[in-house]
């Protein structure tokens, strides 16, 4: 067994990176693992619940627009986002959203940052004759500055590309706008099969 790094995107200055996209990566491996630290300014929500959402889309020759079926589980303290630790699925999703909850700074003023370590598996991503299951796990935590009314959450997704194609491109975007900030690093690894 061997692993090979296929590609990497890193934000070294907080400037104008609105999307991190990978195209043309090797199709010579069986599975793909993605390891990342995502960081952004939070531009949605507010107060103790500011956040940013990360949108992930994949595709073969072009990005899928309606070919994914995602089942996800998001769990947040106090069930503020209505998921309640339960399962839900949305076959209409053509992408899924990883929510980077903010780590609020103690009040509503000032720039807030959203951080999230996350990892993914794309199973048999290079096979053009099968659907591609994708596993995602990540999230973030509540504020170190808050001891009450705290928020944090974790999200776990399984998605399946309903189309029979390989994954040739993958794109990470901030659905709420703003920029990926410094310290964001996303790495793609291929595993022999």
């Amino acid at each position, binding site marked *: 067994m*061997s*692993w*090979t*790094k296929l590609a*990497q995107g890193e934000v070294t200055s*907080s400037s104008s990176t609105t999307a991190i996209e990978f195209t043309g990566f090797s199709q010579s491996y069986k599975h793909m693992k993605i*390891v*990342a*630290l995502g*960081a952004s*300014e939070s531009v949605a929500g507010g107060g103790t619940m500011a956040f940013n959402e990360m949108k992930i889309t994949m595709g073969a020759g072009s990005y899928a627009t309606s070919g994914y079926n995602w089942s996800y589980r998001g*769990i*947040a*303290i106090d069930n503020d986002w209505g998921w309640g*630790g339960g399962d839900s699925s949305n076959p209409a999703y053509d992408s899924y959203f990883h929510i980077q909850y903010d*780590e609020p*700074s*103690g*009040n509503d*003023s*000032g*720039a*807030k*940052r959203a*951080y*999230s*370590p*996350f*990892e993914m598996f794309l199973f048999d991503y290079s096979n053009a004759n099968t659907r591609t299951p994708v596993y995602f*796990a*990540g*999230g*973030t*935590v*509540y*504020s*170190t*500055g*808050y*001891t009450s009314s*705290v*928020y*944090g*959450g*974790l999200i*776990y997704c399984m998605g399946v590309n309903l189309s029979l194609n390989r994954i040739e491109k993958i794109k990470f975007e901030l659905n709420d706008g703003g920029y990926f*900030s*410094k*310290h964001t*690093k996303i*790495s793609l*690894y*291929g595993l022999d099969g």
Partner: protein
Amino acid sequence: MAGVDLLDGVTLTRDAVSSIEFDNISQSYNHLWILGTWANSSHFHWGSSMAVDFEIFASDSAGTGWGTSGSWSMCAGGSVVIGSGRILNMHNSYQHPVCMMPRMGGVTTIGNSGFEMIIPNYAKSDTGDPCKGFHMQSVGPHPSQGANHHAYGPLHRLSVYKPQGQGSTSGGGSTSDSVAITKIKFTAYSGSFMHGTSIMLYGME
């Protein structure tokens, strides 16, 4: 350098140790990936939980890691470990159950729970709102199912640290402090790690 290299590892045979640490971690990789199993001298019966402290250090000589000042989010498939809810956020506390230890074959013996952890961008040292964190998932037999082989969990944990002046009331802030991780440490909250414990540390190119 291959895509993923084994950097260090500890496998206990006859020894019983209170903590396991990896120091002088190479700074030549992008991410750390840790795979391991736990066994504990005080928790080898089914139905007993095992807690492990996890700390990360920006210096090999630091006496206290960031585990004492970070925040944690945890969720589990059930309420056995983390209380009445499925999600638990902790503040300034780092002593958490990581698994339930199994009993195997009805014999009082050691058992294992496995875990995976990633620490992305661990070697980054820079100014401008630095941050470190990890994602961890572990699994072990469920202690209350009346059998020996029911899966417990999975138990997911995730932590984000904003040490060294972060989290101020003025917002993101900045710091000139290095935040590269050079050492990590696992400490048994009670009892000792023992035979059945094996932790491997990998660097991801």
